[in-house]
């Protein structure tokens, strides 16, 4: 009965979303504000409806209703309550419901903004948001119903259906299969919501861009409205990617954080276009240029958000045949095709209205550098997109499956990332409109000298790898330029106001949040680049089977096998936990406990490394195998990952920088209106 209620509410929310589309279109063309308001209310209603549906499913999961197919697949009696709640996004059907719920949150939030100055956008923002929402709800209702339950026929076969088929009786399994062990990590608990938040929040700027195209209001108003939405979307997507990387590092047990897996790339592609968009819109705001390009970028980002979900949800990655057999795949494919063609057609229709208001006058201007930045981001996107879809093309054309793995991506994207880091350093030095190499040279010679000195220092410390030397030179240059920019700003403010260094820094950043938030993000990216360079170029590893008391050596460290314990836990795990001692030059530094958990319910193992982390490196020990009876010998794989923690430190700084940039300013138009009203009031009072 409860399941039927959740399913019924889903149907109502689908009907509401479709009504919102119809009412908004009718209200726009009639024109009738009442219909548009009705559409807005319908859009707002989707949030409580989907909340109700999601809560119903959470209730079923939490109360062990294993007669529900989805509940059986993702939970078990032994799972703790918090994991049961997060199991909502642990399977296909639940994650689609969660996606839709988040979409309704953002769509409702945007409905609640003040629309007085942008009323013509409202119907089309409703149309785009509601169509997207209706599509995802349709997938749940028609293909991936999380409320479907088990029924047993008289011949003993068990089937899944929403309502009781003739001649069947309810079937209730005693326990569920439990959540995939790999999804029980804290990183994986937070990672999908962050990623989905990033995905759904990019729908909002896309909706405004379409509204601008349909209504013909093609000035930069839609960009100004969505600037913060875009940054929030970008922040969430970035956090989702970082958390996913951390999860891979902690759980997958291969000593790395990014394997260029198609699922990772699926989430990375919208980030690439989103990042290009975040930079490119500034050119439109400042110089009224590249309006076509910005619209195309947000259309691409939206399409890639749907495409990313399609890649991970349709089964297409395992095989094109799996895609053809899945019901959800073709639906996604058609939706992506239709929305992309419709959006691109609108762009072409408004092409002449989107002409640039200025022209590029200098190859050293800020806009020229931003354009180059966009070229590099889009080039990385092309490499990623092509690498992901080529195996499908190959399978379709020749029947032969091929793998496009890390060597391809690393070779193709490495120079592009290096170029981006370099641009990240020098672009803020150039002025909008016009700059010359002389002005740039004057601004960067001091940081350049510091970078050369730092480079000489790393050479003196023994670094000889040519790729690392080039990488570090670029990193040092960008880092010192950015720090120098901070220093110049703080010093100028401090001199002008006689504030001390810290107060000046605080106020400088507070008064120019977008600029200095951006600089903080740049520094965080540089820290991440240091971490990536360290692990990519200098990671070393060794593996060996050793007896108790014996050791393995890697990266100057000695890892000695001390003990192994094998035991069962209350939450249905069999744990093999080793004790190893880490020492360097005879001095004991740490005791680590790499382990292998075997989950009885899902019959899946999970490798949890023992890690000793310092700012300089990680020593990452994995228990690969052991002799089960006497536990006298065990196989360990040990990775020495230099500088990897700079990557995680950079991620934290990134969040801080993004929050600084996103933090709302006072609306200047609202403020000036308030000022005017205040002075008018004072005047009338004086009269």
């Amino acid at each position, binding site marked *: 009965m409860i399941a039927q209620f959740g399913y019924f509410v889903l149907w109502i929310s689908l009907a509401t979303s479709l009504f919102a589309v119809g009412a908004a279109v009718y209200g726009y063309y009639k024109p009738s504000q009442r219909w548009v308001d009705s559409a807005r209310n319908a859009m707002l209603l989707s949030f409580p409806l989907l909340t109700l549906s999601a809560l119903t499913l959470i209730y079923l999961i939490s109360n062990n209703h294993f007669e529900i197919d989805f509940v059986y697949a993702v939970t078990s009696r032994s799972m703790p309550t918090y994991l049961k709640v997060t199991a909502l996004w642990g399977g296909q059907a639940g994650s689609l419901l969660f996606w839709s719920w988040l979409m309704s949150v953002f769509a409702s939030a945007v409905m609640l903004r003040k629309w007085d100055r942008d009323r013509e956008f409202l119907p089309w923002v409703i149309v785009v948001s509601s169509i997207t929402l209706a599509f995802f709800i349709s997938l749940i209702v028609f293909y991936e119903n999380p409320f479907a339950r088990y029924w047993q026929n008289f011949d003993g076969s068990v089937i899944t259906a929403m309502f009781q088929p003739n001649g069947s009786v309810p079937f209730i399994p005693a326990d569920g299969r439990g959540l995939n062990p790999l999804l029980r990590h804290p990183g994986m608990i937070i990672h999908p919501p962050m990623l989905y938040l990033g995905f759904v929040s990019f729908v909002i700027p896309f909706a405004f861009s379409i509204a601008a195209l349909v209504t013909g209001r093609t000035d930069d108003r839609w960009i100004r409205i969505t600037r913060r939405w875009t940054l929030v979307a970008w922040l969430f997507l970035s956090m989702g990617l970082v958390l996913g990387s951390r999860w891979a590092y902690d759980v997958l047990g291969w000593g790395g954080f990014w*394997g260029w*897996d198609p699922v990772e790339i699926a989430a990375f592609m919208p980030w690439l276009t989103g990042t290009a968009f975040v930079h490119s819109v500034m050119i439109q705001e400042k110089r009224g240029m590249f309006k076509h390009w910005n619209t195309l970028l947000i259309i691409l980002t939206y399409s890639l958000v749907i495409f990313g979900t399609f890649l991970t949800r349709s089964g297409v990655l395992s095989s094109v045949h799996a895609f053809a057999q899945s019901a959800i795949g073709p639906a996604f494919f058609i939706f992506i095709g239709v929305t992309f063609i419709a959006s691109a057609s609108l762009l072409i229709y408004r092409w002449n209205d989107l002409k640039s208001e200025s022209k590029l*006058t200098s*190859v050293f201007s800020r806009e020229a550098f931003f354009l180059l930045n966009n070229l590099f981001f889009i*080039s990385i996107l092309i490499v990623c997109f092509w690498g992901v879809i080529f195996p499908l093309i190959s399978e379709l054309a020749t029947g032969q*499956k*091929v793998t496009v793995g890390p*060597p391809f991506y690393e070779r193709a994207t490495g120079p592009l990332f290096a170029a981006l880091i370099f641009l990240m350093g020098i672009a803020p030095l150039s002025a909008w409109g016009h700059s010359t190499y002389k002005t740039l040279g004057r601004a960067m010679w001091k940081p350049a000298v510091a970078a050369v000195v730092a480079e000489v220092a790393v050479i003196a410390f023994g670094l000889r790898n040519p790729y690392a030397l080039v990488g570090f030179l670029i990193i040092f240059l960008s880092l010192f330029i950015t720090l120098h920019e901070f220093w110049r700003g703080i010093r100028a403010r401090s001199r002008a106001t006689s504030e001390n260094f810290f107060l000046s820094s605080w106020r400088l950043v507070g008064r120019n949040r977008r600029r200095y938030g951006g600089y903080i993000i740049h520094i965080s990216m540089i820290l991440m680049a240091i971490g990536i360079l360290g692990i990519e170029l200098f990671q070393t590893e060794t593996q060996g089977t050793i007896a108790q008391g014996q050791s393995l050596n890697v990266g100057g460290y000695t890892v000695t096998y001390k003990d192994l314990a094998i035991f069962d836990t209350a939450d249905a795990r069999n744990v093999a936990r080793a004790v190893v001692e880490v020492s360097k030059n005879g001095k004991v530094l740490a005791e680590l406990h790499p382990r292998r958990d075997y989950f009885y319910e899902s019959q899946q193992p999970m490798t949890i490394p023992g890690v000793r982390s310092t700012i300089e490196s990680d020593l990452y020990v994995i228990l690969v195998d052991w002799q089960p009876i006497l536990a006298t010998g065990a196989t360990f794989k040990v990775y020495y990952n230099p500088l990897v923690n700079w990557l995680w430190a950079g991620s934290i700084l990134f969040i801080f920088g993004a929050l600084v940039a996103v933090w709302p300013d006072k609306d200047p138009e609202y403020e000036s209106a308030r000022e005017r009203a205040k002075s008018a009031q004072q005047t009338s009072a004086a009269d």
Partner: protein
Amino acid sequence: MKKLLWTIPFVLVLALLWKGHVAAQAPTPSDDDVNLVAKQLFCPVCENTPLDVCPTQACAQWRALIRQKLGEGWTDAQIKQYFVDQYGARVLSEPPRAGLNWLVYIVPPILFVVGVVILVRTFRPAENDTYSESADTTPVSGGESSSEGAAAPDEYTARLEDELKKRN
């Protein structure tokens, strides 16, 4: 002669024994040797998992096979080819450079060059613009540049009027 006849089998037995001794002493490939090859291969049945880190039982057996082949003196290339023959090109970390697979390598650079060309073309009007600005200050009779020079003030006036309209 008889002594020599006795000596030959003796030497042969010794040689065989010596060879057997060498075989027994030949170092078994280490885990690192195996991983060095396995790292270049992908699990034939899992999705996008390098063979050196794949946790399945099947992959453990394939690693054992690599160890055996290395022990028999096979080279890395021979082992990789063996896996390709058995399971297809999907076990390689990159598509072999042949036939249709060339597309994966040439399409991104071609599109990058197209991007660069578009970028350069975006800069071209700026060059013309600079020229037209100079033409505007130093009038030249006839030719394209003079017409551009004449067009520039019109464009400026139109923009100015637009701005004024917006302000009003």
